[in-house]
């Protein structure tokens, strides 16, 4: 037998309303993720990334992780995408169709093969391990619980992350500054 555990039957799976909501979120997420890596228009590729990340945020909301979901919306869709668009505009990539964004078929075929094999292996492993394991009914994670844990048990990693962000801020300003204007001091 291919799998060690029982797999939930498709008929039962489609009876649950939450699974339809899951499909409505997951299918656009994956389609736009595919367009992100395959689109030949650089601005479109980044805008498809917005849809994909919004889909993951919706999945987080579905799992009751409201704070994480809205953080994804604020940080990724609000800030990181803007950084990407600024990066595109500064590097003056042509805004129309462009054939030079990806490698040719000689790289794409093995890459697709590798990606499919990786996906198949991960899928086989998780189905083999978790098969029909259901996510039991759960309470949505309250933001105050999350805050208590973050500032109690995880306070040192939190401070380290804030230093990393500070270092990244200073580093990117230093890197991106124009030096050709002479010394200012």
């Amino acid at each position, binding site marked *: 037998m291919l799998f060690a555990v029982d797999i939930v039957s498709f008929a039962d799976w489609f009876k649950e309303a939450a699974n339809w909501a899951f499909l409505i979120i997951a299918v656009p997420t994956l389609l736009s993720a595919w367009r992100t890596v395959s689109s030949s228009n650089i601005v479109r590729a980044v805008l498809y990334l917005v849809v994909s990340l919004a889909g993951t945020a919706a999945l987080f909301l579905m799992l009751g992780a409201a704070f994480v979901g809205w*953080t994804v919306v604020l940080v990724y869709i609000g800030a990181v995408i803007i950084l990407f668009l600024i990066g595109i505009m500064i590097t003056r990539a042509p805004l129309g169709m462009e054939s030079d964004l990806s490698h040719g078929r000689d790289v794409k075929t093995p890459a697709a093969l590798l990606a499919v094999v990786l996906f198949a292996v991960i899928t086989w492993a998780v189905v083999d391990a978790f098969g029909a*394991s259901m996510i039991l009914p759960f309470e949505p994670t309250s933001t105050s619980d999350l805050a208590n844990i973050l500032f109690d048990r995880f306070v040192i990693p939190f401070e380290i992350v804030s230093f990393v962000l500070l270092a990244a801020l200073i580093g990117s300003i230093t890197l991106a500054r124009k030096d050709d204007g002479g010394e200012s001091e």
Partner: protein
Amino acid sequence: MTIVQFLIVGAALFSMGLYGVITRKNAVLLLASVELMLAGVNVNMVAFDVYLTDQLHSGQIFTLFIIAIAAAEVGIGIAIILMIFRNRQSADVDELNLMKG
């Protein structure tokens, strides 16, 4: 809801990000593909957090850390791409062949 459906979405996002990292030549789109991989990892983290009903919510906390690190990574990455573009007039990673590997 089964947990497997979320894990499969995470695996698909990760695999597509890997495909993008290998095939893309433009440095900005390469970073975007890395973001897709991180999004796939985040879906896994939150799904397992809910599945295991973790009292410490480690999965969600680490997802927050991943988001913060990813934001820092993109900031630095765009700054480096900008600097490379100034020096070489190109954002194509294939043209960065100074080391002649």
